[in-house]
């Protein structure tokens, strides 16, 4: 027994015009200062006004949103009493919107209590629309929430199935101007979602096809989108890929690359997609035997000759490293500019964080503490995993 959750997904050029058809009184837009500066809030606001809605903007979401930010936004929501909440931005803004929504509906709760077991009875006060402005996070189509406990330097993987948006608007207009570095980082995030969604312990028939399609789209279009940001086809297909990957992994869960990548992000403040994309080939090698056939299938899908499933993990890891290299991504923590001293000082925290990350449960092979530590050493040095 399992579930498949999905918002209504409106995608393609002019998808944003769907906003003119929603019914309500007040919308609360959760975003960040950069998105507001780019004028995207105004574009959304114009559509809301056409639909007859007033709106208020909270443009204070930071990268890796903190518990404090979520509490502050929820308090403003309680004052404004919206019937629609709009998460506009990357994963940080959309995840913050999801968490603020919970606290708006249930002021008695604290963010850490958002879990997939206890029913929350959302949608008593408002519904949620997600609008991604990057092509990677997939948060528009997932119920997961990643917040940061700044005091403990730790990312919290939270969420309830009820957290899923009512509507996701996947309009390529918002990614037309993404810089190459962000395109690369977020694209690697989408790839990591798709690979883990297909090869984690909770993979399932409903998600497998979505993940494979997303992988193919990333390999076909990410290098083009990074090389030429004006390539409209590449932009649109990557935008679709990210949401498809979100649907895929959102219903089969992310795994070990996320557990270890979250930890890197929390400790070194590395962009999420760069961190998980960096870790992915290493976790493929580590979990290889447990999912060899699937890794081989993916390698073949993206055009890598793979005679036997036994070779699958190694060849897929190589193929992903080649893709990462082609779009200028680092292949090791050293390449990311982390010094040996910084790494050694951070190692205990890296291990502790990864081991307490909820996504680790879904890994096809769950490492013990010593193995996590050893894996980080390999990731630091850029050495292929051989244990």
């Amino acid at each position, binding site marked *: 027994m399992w579930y498949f959750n999905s918002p209504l997904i409106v995608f393609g050029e002019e998808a944003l015009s769907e906003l003119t058809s929603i019914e309500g009184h007040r919308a609360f837009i959760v975003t960040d200062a950069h998105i507001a500066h780019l004028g995207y809030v105004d574009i959304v606001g114009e559509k809301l006004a056409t639909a007859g809605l007033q709106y208020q903007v909270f443009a204070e979401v930071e990268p890796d949103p903190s518990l404090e930010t979520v509490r502050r936004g929820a308090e403003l929501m309680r004052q404004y009493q919206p019937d629609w909440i709009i998460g506009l931005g990357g994963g940080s803004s959309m995840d913050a919107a999801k968490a603020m929504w919970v606290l708006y509906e249930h002021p008695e709760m604290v963010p850490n209590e958002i*879990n*997939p077991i*206890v029913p929350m009875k959302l949608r008593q006060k408002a519904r949620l629309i997600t609008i991604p402005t990057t092509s990677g996070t997939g948060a528009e189509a997932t119920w997961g929430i990643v917040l940061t406990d700044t005091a403990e330097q730790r990312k919290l993987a939270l969420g309830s199935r009820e957290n899923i948006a009512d509507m996701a608007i996947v309009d390529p207009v918002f990614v037309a101007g993404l810089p190459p570095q962000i395109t690369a980082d977020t694209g690697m995030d989408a790839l990591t979602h798709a690979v883990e969604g297909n090869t984690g312990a*909770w993979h399932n028939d409903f998600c497998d096809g979505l993940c494979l399609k997303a992988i193919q789209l990333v390999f076909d279009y990410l290098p083009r989108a990074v090389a030429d940001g004006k390539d409209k086809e590449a932009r649109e297909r990557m935008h679709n890929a990210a949401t498809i990957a979100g649907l895929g992994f959102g219903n089969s869960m992310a795994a070990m690359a996320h557990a270890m990548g979250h930890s890197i992000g929390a400790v070194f403040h590395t962009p999420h997609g760069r961190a998980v994309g960096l870790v992915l080939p290493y976790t493929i090698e580590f979990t290889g035997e447990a999912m060899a056939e699937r890794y081989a299938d993916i390698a073949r899908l993206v055009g890598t000759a793979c005679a036997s499933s036994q070779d699958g993990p190694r060849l897929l890891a190589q193929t992903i490293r080649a893709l990462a290299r082609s779009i200028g991504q680092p292949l090791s923590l050293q390449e990311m500019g982390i010094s040996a001293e910084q790494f050694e000082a951070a190692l205990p925290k890296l291990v502790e964080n990864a*081991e307490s990350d*909820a996504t*680790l*449960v879904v890994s096809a092979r*769950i490492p*013990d503490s010593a193995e996590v530590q050893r894996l980080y050493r390999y990731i630091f040095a850029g050495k292929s995993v051989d244990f």
Partner: protein
Amino acid sequence: MFKFASEEWVQAFKEEINASQGYAEAAKTWEGDFYFIVDPGGPIAQEIVMYLDLWHGKCRDAFICADRAAKTPAFVINAPITAWRKVIDKKLDPVQGMMTRQLKLQGDMIKIMKAVKAAKELVECTTRVPTEFPE
């Protein structure tokens, strides 16, 4: 062979936990006791309450509890025997079982999610107990 959820089965389970290096390592920081409850239904005439006190990678105490009120454990997980059997046969991941409410958890889910390796090792321990399920 031990009849599932009998006093003998619980003692054999405790021995397997305490003999497991994997569990000892994975649960070295775990502090929390459990009721594992088999709900009535099918061959189970009335609920069976198994108590396990798990502490820093070891099982300090384990027994069949005649009265739920005897202890106030940090965690209570109850399920019909069909679900428990799926867990022991490794056909149902315990965390996935809790998320789908096939296993009903009372207690701090976040703490459980942080101890997934320990949960898996605990299931491994059950598979080493020769178990006979009532039909």
